[in-house]
């Protein structure tokens, strides 16, 4: 009865909320989005290269499509950084850092390569970004006690990514 009274008072006076913060949604972290975003960066660079080879910069097709590819490359390079930052900052604990001392350096490298992938159209650097994200994914799944496999993504650009064996 007391709880019902509090609920009624809450509806009227809107009690302040205090968070038993567990991230949203609780316990659901997955590096897959970062991996897909890294693949997208490579794909955009490939499309930019194709466009350069098939259409001149004066063509309307070039002027329409190139900015779009660049925009999507920007968004996905930033998405890689955000997804990795969230898993690293919210999920990884001291015990993980102790077991994988390469982690802080790896995350820093991903941040730098993410920025480089926005600043340049280097496929080599974008591929290095994917490689680092794949290594991060391997570590993440290992912390969960889940084995991984490396397979070619079933879509372009067809580069290798890490999948959990579930």
């Amino acid at each position, binding site marked *: 009865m007391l709880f019902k009274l509090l609920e009624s008072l809450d509806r009227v006076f809107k009690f302040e909320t205090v968070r038993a913060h567990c991230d949203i949604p609780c316990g659901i972290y997955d590096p897959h989005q970062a991996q897909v975003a890294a693949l997208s960066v490579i794909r955009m660079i490939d499309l930019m290269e194709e466009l350069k080879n098939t259409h001149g910069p004066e063509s309307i097709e070039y002027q329409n499509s190139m900015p779009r590819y660049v925009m999507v490359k920007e968004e996905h390079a930033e998405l890689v950084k955000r997804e990795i930052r969230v898993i690293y900052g919210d999920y990884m*604990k001291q015990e993980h850092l102790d077991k994988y001392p390469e982690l802080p350096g790896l995350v820093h490298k991903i941040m730098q390569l993410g920025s480089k992938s926005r600043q340049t159209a280097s496929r080599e650097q974008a591929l290095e970004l994917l490689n680092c994200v794949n290594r991060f994914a391997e570590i993440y799944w290992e912390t969960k006690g889940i084995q991984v496999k490396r397979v070619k993504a079933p879509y372009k650009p067809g580069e290798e990514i890490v999948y959990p064996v579930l």
Partner: protein
Amino acid sequence: MLLGLLKISGYSLAPAFQEGDYVLVSKLPLLIRGVRPGDVVVFDHPLHGRLIKLVDRLACGGNQMFLIGLNADSIDSRSFGLLPTSMAQGKVIWHFQKSK
């Protein structure tokens, strides 16, 4: 806060404290005898806002507290480290939960 009635949002203290439970929080016990392990305290984290966690242990001569949730995925001192005990705004002195 001398005395405050707050509503819990989130699951990191489940099953002891559930989403939607109410807690009566007071700074008075902390002023009288300080923060102790086992206290459930409310504090303002600069990144995560107003949080509620369990004091697992004290460190640095009792001036720092190691805060935990009851779930492995809780955002707590295991990710953000020790916090000064002075950051504790109040301790839970009463807990109102839905009858099962």
